[in-house]
């Protein structure tokens, strides 16, 4: 029996799917993330902080360490955020301090992410003894509370500068990510497409790098963002309690000085508030980006734009599972369909059939 190729052609769907240009589609997929309002807001704020991190030291009106004549002066035209006990300009400190915060946050995030990917994905993909020992390792790191560990480590290391602090935070905070990634890799490893790649003869490292990793991007990204938040908080905490080197300005350093000079008791709220708000804002921005990623990965989490509808009986209800609303305006419904036609014919038909 021969099947002419034409017959196959006839069965080939040439449906509506074939229209869009592929690269555009790919871009669309990626842009969808940015289109998420939460992610967009987060990214914009983050962008501003990044910009300040880069240009902060140039646009700062004063040298943040330079002493001035006005001691503990409230915000004014000359000093937007007021001054410290040495007459230093707090606005400049915040601007200049952004760089350290961003640097440590992102470096620690990157270190932790790389470690968690290395350890988590390896453990998940290799399985067996390698998995057992690597997950044991990450479990141990998970059990050891990070902040105290960071505090101890940071106070261990001589002259803990930004770089050291970032590394310490990075090296102590990868465990959670590794665990998540391992679980995800385990499930990916069983996916058909990984098996299929294996069956077609791909080498192990290529499978890990090109088949598994790209599918973990969202998790890795959200992991990264999470670690950055943690790193920023840890760094600020370390500076605040006076453990890390505070040679370079960061927001924690500002708070450290404010605290050790009892700024609030002095009534110098301006010493505390800007740095605290900056931290909160950066944290919020990062969280928003994280939500964006979450929603991107799992669209269910998106709260759909318009959740309320007007129903046929004129009430406004929320759309929810289990109670499908009956919409008010049958705008596009063509009611003039022979109401009787179908239904009646049927009924008649049955009647006749009897």
């Amino acid at each position, binding site marked *: 029996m021969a*099947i002419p190729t034409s017959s196959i052609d006839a069965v*080939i769907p040439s*449906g509506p799917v074939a229209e869009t240009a592929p690269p555009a*589609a790919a871009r669309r997929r990626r842009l969808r993330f940015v289109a998420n309002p939460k992610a967009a807001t987060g990214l914009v704020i983050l962008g501003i902080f990044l910009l300040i991190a880069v240009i902060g030291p140039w646009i700062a009106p004063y040298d943040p360490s330079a002493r001035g004549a006005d001691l503990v002066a409230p915000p004014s035209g000359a000093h937007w955020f007021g001054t410290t006990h040495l007459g230093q300009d707090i606005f400049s400190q915040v601007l200049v301090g952004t760089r350290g915060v961003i640097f440590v946050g992102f470096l620690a995030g990157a270190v932790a992410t790389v470690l968690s990917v290395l350890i988590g994905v390896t453990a998940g993909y290799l399985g067996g003894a390698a998995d057992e020992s690597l997950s044991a390792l990450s479990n141990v790191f998970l059990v050891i509370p990070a902040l105290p560990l960071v505090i101890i480590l940071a106070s261990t290391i001589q002259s803990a500068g930004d770089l050291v602090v970032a590394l310490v935070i990075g090296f102590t905070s990868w465990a959670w990510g590794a665990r998540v990634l391992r679980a995800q890799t385990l499930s990916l490893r069983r996916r*058909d*497409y990984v*098996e299929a790649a294996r069956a*077609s003869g791909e080498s192990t490292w290529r499978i890990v790098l090109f088949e598994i990793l790209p599918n973990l991007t969202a998790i890795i990204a959200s992991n990264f963002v999470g670690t950055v938040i943690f790193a920023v908080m840890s760094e600020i905490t370390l500076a605040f309690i006076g453990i890390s080197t505070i040679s370079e300005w960061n927001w924690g350093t500002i708070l450290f000085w404010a605290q050790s000079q009892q700024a609030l008791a002095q009534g110098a709220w301006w010493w505390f508030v800007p740095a605290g708000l900056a931290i909160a804002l950066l944290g919020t921005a990062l969280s928003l980006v994280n939500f964006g990623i979450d929603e991107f990965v799992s669209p269910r989490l998106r709260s759909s734009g318009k959740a309320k509808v007007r129903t046929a009986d004129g009430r406004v209800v929320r759309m929810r599972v289990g109670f499908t609303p009956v919409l008010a305006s049958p705008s596009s419904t063509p009611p003039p369909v022979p109401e009787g036609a179908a239904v009646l014919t049927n009924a008649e038909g049955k009647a006749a059939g009897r």
Partner: protein
Amino acid sequence: MTLSEPSAPPLTEVVLEAESLTKHFPVRRRVRDLLSRERRVVHAVDDVNLVLRRGRVTALVGESGSGKSTVARLLAQLYRRTSGDIRLHGESTTVRGGRRFRAYARRVQLTFQDPFASLNPVHTVRYHLTRSLRIHGHGGRTAAELERALHDLLGRVSLTPAERYIDKFPHELSGGQRQRVAIARALGADPEVLLADEPVSMLDVSIRLGVLNLLRDLKERLNLAILYITHDIASARYFADDTLVMYAGRMVEGGDSETVTQRPAHPYTRLLIASAPDPDRIQGSPTDAAAATPEDRGGGEPPSLIDPPPGCRFHPRCPNAMPRCLTALPPRLAVQGEPGHWASCWLYDPENTETPGSAAREVGAVAS
């Protein structure tokens, strides 16, 4: 397209052959097992013999969990076999990754059941196909050669014009198109054997046919040996030259597709065929439909593969069970008068002296 009674083609060269193929998966140990030395295993595949010939489609049917996919993966050397032998062109092969696995994969390729899962969502069609060409050195030396090879590949699975599909992501393709890409990827290795694990079960009715026809076309044009795995016995009849029936990890019947489907020998095959939906059975009262329900003493439940029933694995459900079925494993027995048709069932033992069904009633009575 015309359909003619398959004119049993002459037996061609054997490409891949499995002998006494066995796969036992270890069961995770329980505390109580720690005391006993015995390791518990899932008898996923036991003593399976099978022959794939050039230019022939062999169907492997059986219910879910009967071990079909495991056989396919064993043949693709994705699992290590517990025992038995796999011979490629008569040569025993055992490969465990690396260069030798690649060389094996070049000749034996596997496609998966679910086209929605077997393509990586982050890669384009081009990536998938390029990789399969490159791995096996069919990618050519220049970009132009590669491009030509890609077009050729897509052409072979009738995804033309190639430009329309080549830069798409899997999610932009329909199920049938995806399955074609999966097949094209297997063909990229230029294999001699194609192991197709349920290639259409996840596809919509109206698309299935296209993929099956494609496979048949490939068989004929490329002279491939194809193992077609399915649980839909009707499609085996339609598409395969030979059909093997599996039950609980063992082969229970085999032979020419038409013979197996029209004159099933093994009670399990009979049950399977009787259960398949059959539009021609309508017209009658629903009681008829109920009456047509074949006898199945097991409530439709397959046996545990950890402690498979002794003797014939089907005996707890078999209406024809005889006392010896409970203890003795039936060998392959030729069905008389039908060359090439065999069944692993004591009913076909020419020396059988027991009454079919004698053990069934006993056991049935005890069970109820």
